[in-house]
């Protein structure tokens, strides 16, 4: 399991650099890995792969639908394509291609959606996916991963490279808070317990993991013991961890950089209602489109903050 670093602070390594390094490591072991881009290789950070493996790098230009379909066709011949685009275009724009060209025919395509939610920042509403997890959850068999920091890539990319199927990874491409110590390893499909507690459990993914840890500290000052789970795999959801949290904490707060409809909060609440129904509150975007701003501004704008999680936790505990 991944262990917390002693000193959580903004990383010196960009997420995209860590991703590409992990992908190159896998590609050195597996000659079938290919990179497919749709004119954002510079943005998503795959350029080092092009230098290392030019014969295995394909930039299609601005044609996500074709790029996804072509990736599916390549996988039929044994290749393992990793397709990259901004999350909105990687999923929403090419949804039918993901659904029918990839998943319906059980082909082997890896989809990387950059700039999830508010991390799209000043690219604004057109580029800000609050719905990508919801869409991908509807694709039968798809795996959905959202890493919290750079250390998680090794496990995530290794899983994607070595397991067959349609996998979606949503990720910020810039520097993010370093949560885990070097060498931390993760099991895809198993939540990572970052703090134990008995009064409430905060289940978070991506950038919200850091906010969840801060919220737990604030709650601790109020005498409330909060468990924190990094639910880096949204599908398949670690329902065992959710049921255990429900039984042992009796109140659940989810925190996601996504619409609360269809995302992590929905997935957790579905698991709770079918297993151990306890009060739950969902922190996330509610019935809104994205807009421009810094990530900090947008996190406050949409309530994606430690304070937002604390408020939700207090409300949730009061409903016990």
């Amino acid at each position, binding site marked *: 399991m991944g262990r917390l670093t002693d000193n959580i602070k903004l990383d010196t390594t960009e997420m995209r650099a860590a991703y590409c390094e992990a992908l190159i490591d896998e590609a050195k072991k597996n000659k*079938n890995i*290919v990179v497919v881009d749709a004119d954002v290789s510079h943005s998503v950070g795959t350029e080092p792969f092009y230098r290392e493996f030019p*014969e*295995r790098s*394909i930039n*299609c*230009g601005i*044609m996500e*639908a*074709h*790029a*996804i*379909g*072509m*990736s*599916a*066709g*390549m*996988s*039929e*011949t*044994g*290749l393992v*394509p990793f397709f990259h685009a901004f999350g909105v275009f990687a999923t929403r724009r090419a949804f*039918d*291609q993901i659904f*029918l*060209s990839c998943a*319906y*025919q*059980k082909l082997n395509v890896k989809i990387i959606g950059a700039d999830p939610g508010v991390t799209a920042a000043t690219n604004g509403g057109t580029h800000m996916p609050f719905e990508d997890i919801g869409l991908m959850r509807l694709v039968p068999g798809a795996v959905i991963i959202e890493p919290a920091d750079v250390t998680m890539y090794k496990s995530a990319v290794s899983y994607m490279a070595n397991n067959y199927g349609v996998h979606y990874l949503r990720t910020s491409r810039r520097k993010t808070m370093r949560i885990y110590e070097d060498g931390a390893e993760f099991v895809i499909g198993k939540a990572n317990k970052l703090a134990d507690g008995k009064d409430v459990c905060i289940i978070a993914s991506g950038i919200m993991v850091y906010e969840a840890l801060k919220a737990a500290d604030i709650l601790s000052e109020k005498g409330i013991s909060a468990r924190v789970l990094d639910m880096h795999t949204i599908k398949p959801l670690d329902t065992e961890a959710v049921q255990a949290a429900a039984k042992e904490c009796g109140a659940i707060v989810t925190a996601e950089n996504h619409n609360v409809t269809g995302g992590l909060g929905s997935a957790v609440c579905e698991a709770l209602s079918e297993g151990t129904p306890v009060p739950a509150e969902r922190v996330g975007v509610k019935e809104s489109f994205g807009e421009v701003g810094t990530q900090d501004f947008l996190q406050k704008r949409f309530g994606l903050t430690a304070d937002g999680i604390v408020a939700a936790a207090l409300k949730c505990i009061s409903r016990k």
Partner: protein
Amino acid sequence: MDKKTTMKAAADIRKLCIEELAAAGYGHIGGSMSICDILAVLYTDILDIDPKNPKKPDRDYLVLSKGHCGPALYATLAYKGYFDKEQLKTLNQGGTSLPSHCDRLKTTGIDISTGSLGQGLSLGTGVAMGKKIQGIPGRVFVIVGDGELQEGQNWEAVQFIAHKGLSNIVIIVDNNRRQLDGYTKDICQTFDYKAKFESFGLHTFVADGHNVTDIYDKLTTAIKTGPAAVIMNTEKGHGCKFSEIPGFNHYMVISKEMADEAIAEVDRRLEASYGQID
């Protein structure tokens, strides 16, 4: 190629397809009939395939992007021995291995699932790229409908094929000039497809899609020239009177009596064609 043999194959495929659709009682007769001669040439004279080893990696691939015409391809696969001809009578029945639209997971010999129009060409392009990157022999033939070319994704794929100079893929357009709601010219203006493909940088040929010799000549030339498209001029519903109507023939109810009459018609026409060759 032996013209008579391929013409006989086309007639046999057409008859199997009519029987198959009649067993279901209905189906996509128009677009299925228009591609029977093209399929006969591909499966008799062009494709490097082995019905006993349908997944051999170095095979030629056939992607029927206009997936609703699966019944014609199923008839062809049964004719080639991929599965028993009796199986054709299960078309569209619950639990069948022959669903209305092509499904690679259900039907032996189907390389790629299709049905959402506009996606097959990208899938075929991916197979061609995969073969090229890994040095795997074999070519890819993708059949698209002329109505289907209204889907923009096709033109993304054509740009890509031209830019990469992909020479192991051939686009085949079933130019039957009609789509579900009527004539393409009335729904969204038809284009000079030859000029359009050429403007993208593809070598483009035009064939009579019901003349097996012309189909064979243009396909074999296209394979040698590099990125290529062949426009097959066809008639929707071609081959039997009941489906060669100017009205709606995309999808028709087909009785046993209609099928029997149509099959006799196919035989009569084949005999007449032999006479013209002789």
